């Protein structure tokens, strides 16, 4: 469903993404790992249209979307959540989600009717149930806990009913228990949503537990890719990132 062909991006003299070629199967759940500065987030930015690649093709369902504007890429079915939760501080959870659903249904340009009577309550509470935010419906986004802000960020992407969902470190900044709760939610979303999911993650326990395929980036290039078992044994990956096999779970 998503193919990266020879995608290249440099910032000044620094090569952030170095001729990356990757193929993501429809409905798959894959992880991107790699040390800091390996170009993981840049790769997401290239896919989602935040930045344009210097070269190469980003092919979504047979169409090259490299260089297409971010809002248009959203319309074509790519949703994303951010490493630092990107939310709307002054809106309540249900307001933010209503806004996202309205945008998805192309109704945000309407001057008639009232936002609070847009008849989307059902869909919004469905999303809140999926993401476990129902208790926070009327809480201002700024007042949510860190974990709930990350959930809201994901919920906003879910509201767009994406074919492809990009999650940039969904568990960043969370304690161990919270992490597992979050990752179970993400897994459940993926199962029920029938979408393709790619996530960036530093917690190797999580990566090896849930990812079907793992891509390892280093200095912007693909170091290795394959199922968890193969990655775990890959000597190059161990040397570059995982450390000695005995401490393979260190993150």
């Amino acid at each position: 469903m998503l193919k990266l062909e020879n995608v290249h991006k440099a910032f000044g003299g620094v090569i952030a993404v170095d001729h990356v070629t990757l193929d993501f199967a429809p409905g798959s759940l894959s992880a991107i790992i790699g040390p800091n500065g390996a170009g993981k987030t840049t790769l997401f930015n290239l896919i989602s249209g935040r930045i344009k690649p210097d070269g190469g093709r980003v092919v979504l369902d047979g169409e090259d979307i490299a260089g297409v504007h971010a809002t248009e890429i959203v319309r074509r079915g790519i949703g994303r959540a951010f490493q630092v939760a990107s939310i709307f501080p002054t809106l309540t959870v249900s307001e933010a989600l209503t806004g996202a659903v309205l945008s998805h249904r192309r109704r945000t340009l309407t001057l008639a009717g009232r936002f609070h009577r847009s008849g989307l309550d059902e869909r919004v509470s469905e999303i809140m149930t999926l993401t476990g935010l129902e208790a926070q419906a009327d809480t201002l986004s700024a007042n949510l806990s860190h974990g709930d802000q990350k959930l809201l960020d994901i919920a906003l992407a879910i509201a767009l009913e994406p074919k492809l969902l990009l999650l940039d470190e969904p568990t960043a900044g969370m304690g161990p228990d919270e992490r597992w709760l979050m990752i179970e939610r993400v897994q459940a979303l993926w199962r029920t949503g029938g979408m393709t999911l790619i996530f960036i993650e530093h917690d190797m326990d999580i990566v090896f537990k849930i990812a079907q395929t793992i891509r390892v980036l280093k200095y912007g290039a693909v170091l290795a890719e394959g199922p968890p078992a193969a990655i775990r044994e890959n000597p190059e990956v161990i040397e570059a990132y995982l450390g000695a096999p005995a401490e393979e779970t260190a993150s």
Partner: protein
Amino acid sequence: MKHETFLKDVAIGIGVVLLLALLFQVITDPGIHDLIIKTCIFGLFALSLNLLVGYLGLVAFGHATGFATGAYVFGLLMQTGTWTIPAAMGVAVVAAAALAAVIGAFCIRAREIYFAFLTLAFQMILYSAIISFVSLTGGDQGLMGGYPKPPFLGIDLSRPFDYYLFVCGVTVICVILLRQVIQSPFGYALRMIRDNHERSYFLGIQVKLYQWIAFVIASALAAVSGVMMSLFVTGAFPNFAYWSMSAEPLFMILLGGMQTFLGPLLGAFILQLLNDLVTEHTRYYGLVLGLVILFFILGLRRGLLDVVWDKVSDRRRKAGTVRPASPVTGDAEARERS
């Protein structure tokens, strides 16, 4: 108070106009009438600017462009002696909106302070044009000599009561329309852009398009206040397009509050009241105004109605009803972060 329907807003609006009509009959002091008229004119001017400042997070320094365009186009048309007031008013507002559509297309490309100054640059171009195009605009003398105010629909704007009621009525209609904009899905998209424009892009919202539309709407409403101002002075003057005319609605927003819908209207009232009271006693109007603004910014750190609204919702929260605090004010940090 929070999510009223359009019809309820209309009902409240009608009530307010009736009340103001009654007030005119009870209090016969023309000074008070003028105070209310000016509060309406500048209140609408400030409210329209607050669509950009408060709801979209775009500070514009050149909002008087719409105001002056409305006043001059209206004044010029009326001076021909062949136009009816509603027709001239319509053309004036459309002209200001069209000008804003062009100016806005340039300005929204710039971010924040650059946007603010770009709008001011366009305003100063308009000011220069008004000053130099003497044969049409009367240059620095303004549109002199007055113009006829032909009655329409039984309304004769040369009669004080008719004019007073006309201003109150038009203002209330515009306020209801503005409230509809703010409470519509479009209005919430503006809040989303204000809070986090980056995230808005990734929800499929074309940020620049929304900013442009809001800019045009705000300018059109500013033109309405410009038209009412022109009727007040039976003319139009170049100071309508001078930079200080754009600073006034910003002061009103600061004084009255930008997070509460009617804050800028209260700000306009405070400023007009100050103007009346202070100039009666001293020449140092600017000094007093400066001190008052300092008090609001350093002391209250937000507008008066914002403070009141925060207090009310604090009390409500303590009493157990849910709706959390005021939008924005308490969450400056969170806004910065995202």
